[in-house]
């Protein structure tokens, strides 16, 4: 399917001047070209045809907002490249030698659910949500030195269907809207010292909106510098 095809808007049709129509077509082609070159692996990927309002620029800006949430400790602490999760705003290695295990759920006597229940335990300071576990290696957002990956790298990995559990844009949006572990990041509960865990830079609503914009723009990724 020819991606990035811009259907002329109603507004554009009002102006029947050839001149203007050519500009629109040229613009559309440029958008299509840009979208195509920035997403070389997008073959087979469905996306909502972007409206005129959801430009690549808008999409990239929205992506930066999404990226700012993904790389916040409440999210990225479980998207490690290592055999352990992180904890805290300083993203230090999780205490008590907690490990990833073969399925990202820990090891038999030290599973994630050994401590993390299906809801926050504010009286004891342990966060919780349904099915607490680590994101798989394919969804790592850090390198082996616990350094956060770049915006481009994470965007690529997020939109790579061989890595992202075969999710298209709509599925990504659904994930960010409904997944309990995602929702948890915005209501992360209290620490054992009674203080509230810090929140991502956007509210969940803003995060969903940004995701939607990005998806509508065709999930564009920034160029590598």
């Amino acid at each position, binding site marked *: 399917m020819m991606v990035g095809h811009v259907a002329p808007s109603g507004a554009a049709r009002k102006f029947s001047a050839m001149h203007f129509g050519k500009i629109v077509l040229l613009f559309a082609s440029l958008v299509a070209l840009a979208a195509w070159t920035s997403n070389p692996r997008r073959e087979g990927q469905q996306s909502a045809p972007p409206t005129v309002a959801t430009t690549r620029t808008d999409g990239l800006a929205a992506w930066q907002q999404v990226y700012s949430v993904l790389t916040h400790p409440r999210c990225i602490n479980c998207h490690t490249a290592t055999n352990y999760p992180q904890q805290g705003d300083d993203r230090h290695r999780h*205490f*008590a*030698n*907690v*490990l990833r*295990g073969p399925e990202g759920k820990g*090891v*038999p*006597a*030290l*599973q994630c*659910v*050994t*401590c993390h*229940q*299906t*809801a926050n*335990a*504010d*009286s*004891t*300071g*342990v966060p*919780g949500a349904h099915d607490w576990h680590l994101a798989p290696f394919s969804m790592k957002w850090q390198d082996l030195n616990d350094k956060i990956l770049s915006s481009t790298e994470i965007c690529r990995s997020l939109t790579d269907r061989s890595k992202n559990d075969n999710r298209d844009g709509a599925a990504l949006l659904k994930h960010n809207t409904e997944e309990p572990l995602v929702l948890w990041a915005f209501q992360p509960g209290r620490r*054992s010292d009674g203080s509230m865990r810090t929140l991502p830079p956007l509210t969940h609503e803003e995060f969903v909106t940004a995701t939607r914009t990005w998806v509508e723009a065709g999930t564009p990724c920034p160029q590598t510098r």
Partner: protein
Amino acid sequence: MEIYTITVNGLSKQVTVDPGTPLLWVLREELKMTGTKYGCGIAACGACTVHLGGVATRSCVVPISLVGSRPVVTIEAMATDPVGRAVQDEWVSLDVVQCGYCQSGQIMSAAALLKSIPKPTDKDIEESMGGNLCRCATYVRIREAIKSASQQLKV
């Protein structure tokens, strides 16, 4: 204060406590079952380990309100559990304990491991026991006793 009904070692128990009360303190103070120990209160040491719904669980951080209908099994029930008993017998045979305070948790973790991996490798043992603290450092014999218990248990 609210009323909770939980199943502990096969028996139904009713307690009236604040919803945020950790399962550990419900066991120790409401049910007078002191085999499960308080070592840190933040799930860093494992002394409070029970089996909740068949999963090794650190009872010091699980509020009673989140227990639900999942059965609770404590150290007190291990003597009549084939895996638990094998672990206890090897612990005694190899003279594992010193002060003994952490050992309820160690045994519960070891039993959970063996129920999941009946023939664990050294790596399996070190990983599963990796979060149980022992200040007396009885770790050398804990490793040996788990391997020995594994051999005692029929596959």
